[in-house]
């Protein structure tokens, strides 16, 4: 006995050093606060099949990330707007924003004509081109004359006698924003005028300091202007609401669960010291998991934290088993007989979590690693340290164990045959009715009111969200612009045929070279007879004709780079992907054509058909694509967990032989039961309810293994009951979370773990001949 004891002592010391190292590295990693990530989309898999799509998505999404838009409706609009702008600019000591546009002059600081002037003879609106085609441009003389003599015109008889550039710019300007009393304003269909403020954040929208500074500034403004109404749009508002909700739930659900847990454990063990000792493995688990995850991933995801904090439920299992055993056995307590059960419990849970790590989702991998490392750390802490701690044993614990045992032991035992029949029926129900839901709504913690407000702002501003687009590739720029232009024509044809969509096309801004050449040729026609007529009727000197014609001698072609550099073109930068490497390794150019107003599946199919008919064009529905990926992920998770379960069952059969069904029934029964409940209630399955199943599986297997290893011992049953109850508190209460992801995780745990608790008494091995007498009972 001395040698293992000495070995245990050494190991315990060594483990102490490991945990100390964990403390030191964690302290170093947290020196600037916890690097956390609240983006739920960070959980999504990288689309390995199509990095180009990834890039297009990122490009279209990023354009909006650091911006936010406020629409203000207030009685004294100019004054209220100025006050709001002042508060925003001053927020966080002036460090919140790098830019705020709210006056009409904020947009008037560059003259588009200055940049596009030289190219104007190659840029013709369709109506001008048509007019020249019809009669050589004679019909354009009269409007040009009117323009020359109108007081409002800005005539340039030499540079642009027909006002081509003005017409071009007017066509490009499709913004619903207008200037009013020095403000930027938009009006809705009811005529309500709102002022527009566009802010650009200095920090990322996920930075808590930026979220708080913005929220404070807006609150102060709303307090000062009680009759003002604000519409918000921008990632930062969603991120802030998500963070606020998470904080709120941590303080209600989290704290509630924690308090209930402490009350229950105190009631059973009657010793605060024991309680602290029980939490020791949890601390050990976190001290291993957090530094390791931070070292490997750089930052912790919100969901990892939620999931990791919920690790309490599982990590505390081992400590509960040890302590219940100790309370009941008293001086006769030895660790050794418990070790096989504890080890099997750990291995089964680790297998379930590590199966997750095989999924191609960075977020899931992080969670799996966090859970597995935390579990291993908690297990080692429990096994190496707890038996060495002198803990008070209260006789009440043994009494409770005995009473709970007699109270819950069923009078009959269960035949495996019946179980198989029930399992088959449940499988039938599941196969018949269970549905799945992979919509992105699950990932979106924003309330529906918030999403509606976002949509309202986007539609008032006539903007797209970049979620549906065409991805167009070609070998060079002329070919790419040509393809975009052809696509635009097809869309126009479809629009004339009843398709109600809008789009923004780079080729409308930068026509393909062939069209630019054709435009120049048309302008040369216009500068023939019609120009002479105009000059003559206007009474301008004849020299104007030659001077004007001379401007057509060398007209540069407008290319994409020039347009994107122009102030008016910056908004189109998000459409341009530039050179990309395609699947077959060749380098091509790519651009997107972004759609808006696509709101039915039929429209989506029509757009996909348009894309299919054109070479190098692909229709992308980002939301549908991500949903598809989520679904794929869900199927991945089921597959891997199913495989892990099959392997585990095989392993358990090796150890328990004919009794193996007793070990797996709580876990499998709970899973089948939960799925059947979902099937009957019509709750669709999603990836987060599957994560919950994983937890149910881990805890259910632990319960089955302990029941089988330590058959019919009240101490074991008490430990299993406590561990199930603590897990229900830790995870199950998440069912009340308003975040869809956590809600489904929690709901599954609530149902599944309750079923585990109900099933365990029925599958205990048959009573042994000699009745075991718990210590403290007579």
């Amino acid at each position, binding site marked *: 006995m001395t040698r293992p004891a000495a070995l245990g002592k050494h190991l315990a010391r060594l483990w102490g050093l490991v945990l100390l190292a964990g403390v030191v590295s964690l302290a170093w990693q947290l020196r600037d606060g916890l690097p956390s990530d609240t983006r739920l989309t960070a959980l999504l898999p990288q689309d390995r099949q199509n990095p180009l799509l990834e890039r297009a998505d990122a490009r279209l999404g990023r354009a909006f990330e650091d911006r936010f838009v406020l629409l203000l409706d207030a009685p004294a609009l*100019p004054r209220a707007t100025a006050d709001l702008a002042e508060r925003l600019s001053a927020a966080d000591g002036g460090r919140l924003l790098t830019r705020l546009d709210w*006056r009409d*002059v904020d947009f*008037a*600081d*560059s*003259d588009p004509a200055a940049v596009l002037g030289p190219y104007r003879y190659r840029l013709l609106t369709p109506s001008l081109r048509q007019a020249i085609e019809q009669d050589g441009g004679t019909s354009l003389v*009269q409007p040009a*004359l*009117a323009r*020359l*003599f*109108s*007081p*409002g*015109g*800005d*005539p340039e*008889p*030499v540079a642009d006698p027909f006002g081509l550039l003005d*017409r071009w*710019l*007017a*066509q*490009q*300007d*499709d913004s*619903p*924003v*207008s*200037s*009013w*009393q*020095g403000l930027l*304003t*938009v*009006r*809705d*269909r009811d*005529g309500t005028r709102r002022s527009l403020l566009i802010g650009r954040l200095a920090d990322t929208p996920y930075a808590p300091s930026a979220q708080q500074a913005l929220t404070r500034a807006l609150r102060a403004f709303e307090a000062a202007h009680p009759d003002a109404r604000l519409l918000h749009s921008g990632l930062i508002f969603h991120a802030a609401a998500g963070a606020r909700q998470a904080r709120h739930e941590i303080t209600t659900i989290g704290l509630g669960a924690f308090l209930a847990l402490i009350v229950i454990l105190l009631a059973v063990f009657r010793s605060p010291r024991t309680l602290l000792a029980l939490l020791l493995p949890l601390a050990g688990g976190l001290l291993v998991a957090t530094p390791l995850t931070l070292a490997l991933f750089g930052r912790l995801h919100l969901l990892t934290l939620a999931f990791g904090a919920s690790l309490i439920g599982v990590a505390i299992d081992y400590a509960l088993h040890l302590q219940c055993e100790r309370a009941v056995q008293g001086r006769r307590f030895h660790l050794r007989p418990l070790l096989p059960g504890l080890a099997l419990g750990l291995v089964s849970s680790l297998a379930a979590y590590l199966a997750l790590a095989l999924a191609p989702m960075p977020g899931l991998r992080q969670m799996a690693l966090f859970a597995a490392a935390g579990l291993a750390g908690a297990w080692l802490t429990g096994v190496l340290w707890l038996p060495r701690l002198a803990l008070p044993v209260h006789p009440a614990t043994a009494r409770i164990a005995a009473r709970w045992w007699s109270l819950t032991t069923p009078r009959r035992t269960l035949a495996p045959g019946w179980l198989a029949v029930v399992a088959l029926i449940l499988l039938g129900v599941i196969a018949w009715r269970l549905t799945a839901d992979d919509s992105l709504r699950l990932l979106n913690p924003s309330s529906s009111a918030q999403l509606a407000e976002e949509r309202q702002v986007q539609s008032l501003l*006539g903007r797209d969200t970049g979620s549906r687009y065409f991805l167009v590739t070609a070998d060079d720029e002329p070919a790419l612009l040509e393809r975009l232009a052809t696509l635009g024509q097809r869309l126009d044809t479809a629009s004339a045929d009843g398709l109600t969509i809008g789009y923004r096309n780079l080729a409308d801004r930068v026509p393909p070279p062939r069209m630019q050449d054709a435009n120049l040729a048309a302008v040369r026609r216009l500068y023939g007879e019609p120009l002479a007529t105009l000059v003559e*009727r*206007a*009474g*301008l*000197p004849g*020299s*104007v004709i030659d001077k004007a014609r001379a401007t057509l001698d060398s007209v540069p072609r407008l290319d994409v780079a020039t347009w994107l550099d122009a102030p008016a073109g910056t908004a189109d930068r998000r459409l341009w992907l530039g050179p990309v490497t395609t699947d077959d390794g060749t380098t091509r150019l790519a651009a997107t054509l972004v759609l808006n107003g696509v709101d039915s599946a039929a429209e989506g199919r029509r757009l996909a058909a348009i894309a299919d008919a054109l070479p190098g064009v692909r229709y992308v529905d980002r939301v549908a694509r991500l949903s598809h990926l989520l679904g794929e992920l869900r199927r991945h998770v089921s597959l891997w967990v199913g495989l892990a379960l099959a392997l585990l069952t095989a392993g358990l059969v090796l150890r328990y032989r004919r009794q193996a069904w007793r070990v797996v029934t709580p876990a499998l029964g709970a899973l089948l039961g939960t799925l059947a409940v979902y099937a009957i209630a019509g709750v669709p399955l999603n990836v987060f309810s599957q994560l919950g199943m994983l937890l149910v599986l881990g805890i259910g297997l632990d319960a089955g293994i302990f029941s089988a290893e330590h058959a019919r011992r009240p101490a074991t049953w008490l430990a299993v009951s406590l561990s199930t109850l603590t897990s229900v508190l830790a995870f199950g209460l998440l069912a009340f979370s308003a975040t869809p992801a956590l809600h489904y995780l929690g709901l599954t745990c609530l149902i599944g773990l309750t079923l585990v608790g109900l099933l365990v008494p029925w599958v205990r091995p048959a009573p042994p001949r000699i009745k075991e007498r718990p210590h403290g009972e007579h």
Partner: protein
Amino acid sequence: MRLFVLLMLGLLSSPALAFDLADLQHRLGATQGLSGRFVQTRHLADLDTDLESRGHFTYQRGKRVVWALEQPVEDRQVFTPADARAADDAPGDTGSDRRRRQIAALLLNLLDGDWQALERRFSLTLSGDATAWQVALAPRQAALRERLAGVTLAGGRYVERLRLETADGDTLTVRFSDLQPLAGSDP
């Protein structure tokens, strides 16, 4: 230079710049309607040429402004409050329609006495007396200064002359004559 139209029409009956010449302010602001003739001369510096046009106009407060060119080309522009209202909520508009409506909106803001907008863009200097006054408007924003050097208005009972100088040396001068308050609208 559309701003010019707004300026001009706005000031014809202008209910006060930030003048402290209360008399002028009152007199201009009291006009509910006005009609008359105009001669417009645009001097193009680089061609050293003048483009001259003439016509008539009518303004009815809160209803419409009609600017009718007679020579050398016939052209009639009407701005109404309806144009202004339609300025932003007509999604099917072509760009030029929409731009025109925005002009109408801004124009009517001016006519209805929204001088804040004007002062945001220009600094105003007043000289002379009630019978012969002159107002100089200098653009505040650099972006506007790049195109517009300055505006001067002069008049007595009503605005009589308006002169606009662009940054490239062109000038536009409008002289008003036969100014008549519309029947029933004079105080």
